[in-house]
């Protein structure tokens, strides 16, 4: 089976998982059933398999590279990173609700990658500067970081919804969300993990830039925006450790951070120019 059909099945599995999560949440008013969690594990295995088959296809064309070099491959790998982080968090905290955000988002990313005419899906040979193991470390750590921030974004939105409207006694709680404390812990842990991973991503990127271009930092827009994002989460962690920032403030902060993540990942490429344009 070739990579695009595997990835196609993964895309539809994610879409189905997203719909199932939304259905159980809004219509059944309960947390996701364990079956959906197993489905998520299956879907991510398909996603990973598609990614690995593409790796194999790239080596058969004689170009031989880890598929992390253009927007198509970026979205495919970002998707499996996000679902892997989701699985880890869900395994540990059992919120049962993160999937409401994660699966619509990843199915959208996967569909955009495969169907948008703006995204080139062909396997292209790599220019010499991109032929480096540091590229793999750099991209994977950044993506795992982005994935953690995405999970934190989901938890933050749920936190705001959960604490937003006081339910009167006797009135049925509008939406069956997990405890605010658990959501707060998830968003904090995800931010902490994302902060560390993005930090490692920025550093491995610098090492690579230093070896390929002779300069570890050149204020390229992508570089700069990843630093800005990292600083935002650094401020979050400082405020949390030294001032005990929790609750709604922490949730709003994570959402601002996630906007910066989105801008770093996509906005920079479409609005600003630099070394990282996935052309």
């Amino acid at each position: 089976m070739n990579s695009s059909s595997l990835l196609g099945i993964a895309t539809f599995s994610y879409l189905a998982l997203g719909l199932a999560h939304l259905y159980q949440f809004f219509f059944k008013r309960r947390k996701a059933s364990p079956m959906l969690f197993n489905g998520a594990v299956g879907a991510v295995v398909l996603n990973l398999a598609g990614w690995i088959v593409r790796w194999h296809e790239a080596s058969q064309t004689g170009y031989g590279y880890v598929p992390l070099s253009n927007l198509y491959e970026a979205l495919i790998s970002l998707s499996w990173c996000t679902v892997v982080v989701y699985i880890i968090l869900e395994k540990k905290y059992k919120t049962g609700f993160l999937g409401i955000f994660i699966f619509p988002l990843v199915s959208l990313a996967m569909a955009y990658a495969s169907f948008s005419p703006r995204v080139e899906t062909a396997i292209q040979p790599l220019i010499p500067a991109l032929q480096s193991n540091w590229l793999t470390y750099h991209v994977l750590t950044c993506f795992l970081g982005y994935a953690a921030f995405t999970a934190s974004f989901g938890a933050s939105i749920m936190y705001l919804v959960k604490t937003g409207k006081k339910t009167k006694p006797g009135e049925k709680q509008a939406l069956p969300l997990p405890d605010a404390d658990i959501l707060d812990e998830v968003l904090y842990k995800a931010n902490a993990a994302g902060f560390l991973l993005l930090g490692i991503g920025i550093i491995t990127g610098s090492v690579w830039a230093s070896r390929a271009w002779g300069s570890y930092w050149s204020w390229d827009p992508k570089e700069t925006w990843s630093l800005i994002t990292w600083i935002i989460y650094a401020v979050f962690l400082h405020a949390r450790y030294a001032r005990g920032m929790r609750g709604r403030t922490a949730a709003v902060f994570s959402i601002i951070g996630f906007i910066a993540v989105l801008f770093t990942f996509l906005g920079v490429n479409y609005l600003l120019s630099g070394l990282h344009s996935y052309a």
Partner: protein
Amino acid sequence: MEFFKKAVTYLSSLRLTIITLIGIAAGSGIGTVIPQHLTAEAYAEIYSGTMEQLIHRLQLNDLYHSWWFLIIAAVFTLNLVSCMLKRVPSLIRVLRRKRGDLPPGGLPFTASFKTAGTLDGKRETLYRLLKEGFARPAERHEEKGAIFSAEKGRISRWGFLVTHLGILLIIVGAFAGSYGYRGQMELMEGEQSRQVYLGENIPPVQLDFAVRCDKFAVSFYPQSRRPRSYESVLTILEDGRETGPFRITVNKPLSHRGVTIYQSSYGSIPDMEQIYLKLPSPGSAAPDTQVKTALDSSYTAEDGSYSVTVTRFIPDFAMDEQGHVFSRSRDLRNPAVQAVFTSGDTAWTQWLFARYPDFHSGTDSPVPAQFLGVAGSSFTGLQITRSPGLSLVWAGCLMLVAGAFLILFMSHQQVWVRVTPAGRQLDITVAGSSSRAAAFKPVFERLTKKLKTL
């Protein structure tokens, strides 16, 4: 004095940390929106009025080295150093505390209860319970009973210092790096040089050694014009001695005496003695002739009906808004020649483009000529840098990551269990302390629950 104290307190405050961090983030953001390092004329084209003045006043054309950005960075560094200094005494106090010593002040976690049994009968189980979640349980005797203690993750207390010292090292390394340089050297096969080109109007750097290019090669992907790799074989010449050969390629530089040599580009130098034109042969039936000519030398057709002189060569042809011709780069991206034709009493000037043979600028020419190209020899483009402080930066990065891991994913947890016999029962008091209360709470509760069923 009062003011001085306040200033010192402010300098090490979290508020200042957050203000400077936001300042650095916001400033950096502006630098990605306003294009950097353009000429004054280019800025005048994009911006006008107050904005243009602001760019010059605030050095927004080189924002990351502007006075105000450097001031924010300096204040951030001062804040960082004073925060570390402020925290060192309490860190030393914590780390000096012997295992089992109670921390000064109250304990955040305590629980008391009674259970049946004797101290000697319970000792073994207690040790086992403490060993499950902590390291090195110890026992200290009291007048009536004993205090058992255990702890784990003491190393995480170092996290704060390690991570912030890491950031300081990165800043120091980056500052040291500003005393380095980054320049280019272009060498043809067999050529050698010790001169590093830094840019226009900047005196070049003279290396202590010379670099010779013994061989240069490019390989392409099959059926593609994309280069797969390019590499140079270099020899270092120093005090009459040769070292090498060294093979460098993109991503695999060579370091020698603090100077690093990167394979960064390649190109070819056009030979002005070998310019090829395609010209019509006299008599319309005859095929065109290919002519080799040189810059500024004239070629006359066999029958003398016209002559042509190449007067200018431009490697990367472009035209500004006033219609002045210039070269966008030194690469042969859009090579063009200006040719002056004379036929009888008339003369005309024409631009010919190697990439666009059918396009002629100017009036229709009675002599339909084409510029076929120019011969040249390829050279290797080396980037040569000296970056003092680079190892400090890498050491700082390692410390930053290691320290952040210690802070974020580990915590120092200590527990004490006081066991005092009271008749046939034991009075048990459990106490705990941690550098991260939130993570410790469930751990403490689990331990207490287990102790109750001792």
